[in-house]
């Protein structure tokens, strides 16, 4: 999928001929394109409410224009907005450092298992949590680690002091990150395992003939083989790096308070959907989207400079 040859044959045919030639392929692409236009691009036009004093009952056309007023929370640094931004950035960095590399490590680990049987079983178990919804995952954590959960009940019945894990604002970011790792790491290994299986086994043979240890093989053969996919995924991750898990957070927000749990997405929800400040919420959402685009473009550019393919090519 990524190995597109950069030297495509030059197109000599006219546009009409090309359309005619590719008509079947174009037909295949039609439903998907329509879907994206109707459900992604057309709704984007709704972002216009960021510049309006939007009232849902008046509709977009009926609401008054308000210029840049909605953006004032961003430019003037409204404390609630800054708090959401700060928490978002903290979670983004935690996720980049801890969540992103986890599947790579796990994939390497799985890859080093010799028994195919054990590997299959391990993979199946690891994929499972991905298919649970956040409500279930949060409830599971609650039942295990909550104040009246399994762990604390055990401690209490043995006269030991209890540990406040769920609902503890100091541990909230750690908890969120652990939940994501538990839920999605297994699933995320799929792409890395696929990439690992693409690495030519002759390279390993050659390396071991040259006397390379397993660590050196990892460093000189395996990781270079994974480099393309790691960079690709990292750039894609940057694109929605400011999306740090809406559902997961909103489900657990009440106990820990907004000081540590309000992120941009929950800010948009709490102020827009619940608070009725739709315009401000849209403005914040719009800025968030723009930041994402800028991050992707920059990261891609950097990847090009270092001679990688990145997400797309010019």
């Amino acid at each position: 999928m990524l190995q597109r040859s950069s030297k495509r044959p030059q197109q000599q045919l006219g546009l009409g001929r090309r359309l005619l030639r590719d008509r079947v392929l174009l037909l295949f692409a039609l439903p998907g394109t329509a879907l994206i236009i109707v459900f992604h691009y057309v709704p984007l036009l709704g972002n216009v409410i960021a510049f309006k004093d939007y009232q849902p009952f008046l509709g977009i056309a009926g609401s008054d224009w308000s210029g840049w007023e909605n953006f004032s929370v961003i430019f003037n640094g409204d404390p609630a907005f800054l708090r959401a931004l700060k928490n978002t950035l903290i979670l983004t960095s935690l996720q980049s450092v801890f969540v992103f590399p986890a599947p790579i490590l796990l994939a390497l680990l799985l890859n080093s298992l010799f028994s195919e049987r054990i590997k299959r079983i391990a993979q199946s178990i690891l994929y499972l949590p991905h298919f649970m919804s956040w409500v279930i995952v949060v409830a599971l954590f609650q039942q295990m680690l909550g104040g009246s959960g399994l762990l604390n009940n055990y401690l209490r019945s043995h006269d030991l002091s209890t540990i406040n894990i769920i609902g503890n604002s100091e541990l909230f970011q750690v908890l969120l990150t652990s939940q994501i790792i538990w839920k999605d790491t297994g699933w995320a290994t799929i792409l890395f395992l696929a990439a690992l299986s693409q690495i030519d086994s002759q390279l390993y043979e050659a390396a071991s003939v040259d006397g390379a240890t397993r660590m050196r093989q990892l460093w000189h053969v395996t990781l270079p083989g994974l480099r393309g996919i790691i960079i690709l995924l990292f750039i894609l991750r940057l694109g929605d790096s400011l999306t740090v898990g809406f559902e997961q957070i909103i489900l657990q927000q009440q106990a820990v308070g907004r000081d540590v749990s309000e992120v941009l997405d929950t800010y948009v929800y709490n102020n827009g959907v619940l608070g009725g400040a739709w315009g401000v919420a849209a403005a914040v959402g719009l800025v968030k989207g723009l930041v994402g685009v800028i991050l992707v473009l920059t990261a891609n550019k950097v990847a090009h400079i270092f001679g990688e393919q990145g997400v797309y090519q010019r």
Partner: protein
Amino acid sequence: MPVSRRTLLGGGLAAAAVAVTGTPLLAGCASDKKNAAAANAAVKLPTYVKYGAVKPDLPGTDVVLDGFLKYPANPVKAIAEAPGDGKPITFMTNIPGAIPPSVDKNQFWQQLNQRLGSELQISMASNDEYKDKFATRIAGGDLPDILNIPPDTPQIPGLVKAKCMDLTEHLSGDAVNKYPFLANLPTEYWKGCVFNGAIYGVPVPRGMSRTSLALYREDLLAAKGIKDPAPKNFQEFFDLAKEMTSAKQNKWAWTRVPMSVIRMMLGIPNVWKEEGGKFTSMYEHEAQQEALEAGRKMVAAGVVNPDAFNDKASARKQWFNGGIAAFDYDSFVAWNQYYSDNTAGPAFSVNMLDVPGFDGGEGKPWMGSALNNVTAFNKDSKHSVETLLKLANWMAAPFGTEEYLFRKYGVAGRDYALQGTDPVPTKAGVVETGIGLQYICDAQLSLYWAGKPDVPQKQHAIQEKIAKRLVYDASYGLYSDTLSKKQTQLKKTMDDLENQIVQGKKPVSDWAAAVQTWKSSGGDKMRAELEQALADTAGK
């Protein structure tokens, strides 16, 4: 489903499509708002005509609700004509209980449709999710004929002006007599249905029935040898909680921190207090810090379920019903709900604690908010306003009528079994009738529990005890633009801080600073507007 920015805006765009095809409305001018209070006060509210056909066993007063020990024999059929017009009527609401079976599997609902003469199509969401549903349906411009509007919805005046029918000429003064059961709702409740100088909805009255205090499991306390508990001050209240806690058996006295009870002990106002034209908010009261200290003490002593801060109302109810907790802060409505959800067997029994003063004497209980919600009718509904009002009237037929019996208890033999004259709900009945009809309109609650005359007796007794001491929210029926726009968000910020303080995560002293922020970000403006509204309406 996560509500991402995209889906959120998608809804907005649908609203745009409607606005283009429908009639775009201009936003209300500023001058409209200035005179809103005076205009609202000028509205002639529906005349109260009490429907006196059914005599209560335990007569109430203006405040105390009527109590009944038995369902009257041979209930009167009070409405002869079916209210519907033959065409389906749509309704959107929250429902407090379990999801009921759909209409094709719900005999109660099927028979309801027959009786109404119109198919009632109900779009439901659980209490926790209704606000999301409401906001998105409004934004999508996809409104039903009948709309349950929660009182804390932002900007109700603008909303009803743009989307709902003006009912003034059909309800104002004696016009309401055409709908005798709407006329049977005391005038006080209609105050909350007036916006922009017109009546825009019918009330779903609560008031006294929504008054909340400490509910307790009589059976669990009795098992510990405690009978008729009546703590005389906070210390005794606290000791009682300690006695009912045994963490090793995973039992905690309280389902949540009873902050409101503590505040009532300290005489803190019920939301807003008015004295000589000046308004003060509960947040500003000098005893707040003491209240927070007391709440903190309860959490630190471990008498509150350690998961109290994570969970939603549904978990709280499970703990109380399941005997994991012995105390809950809730209302008379919830008291009944506990009996209908009862999973603990026949011994299950609930009672309510009176509230003492913090250091002795009497506490000041808060009157429950007057309305559960306002129910408004869609301007673009194909039904006539008379049809919809007739339907609301049907839903408001009071206790003792045949309509009430059917509405609340369902189909005889299936949804309830008659025990003497008492309709005792069956399992099927509890779920089948839970379709949210009470939010179209409702009579004032009557104290009654089928087959358990001790329940209304206990309820009536505590109501008589507290009636004289009730403290009212002075802002009810007064319009403040800032309040309607910002109240929800500001309250959430304060609740959030309260949660952190009582958990011991933040110092009590943070409260004062938060009150300052509250004032500057809208609190002072609300106060000014409320004072103005009161002055504008004075003498009218």
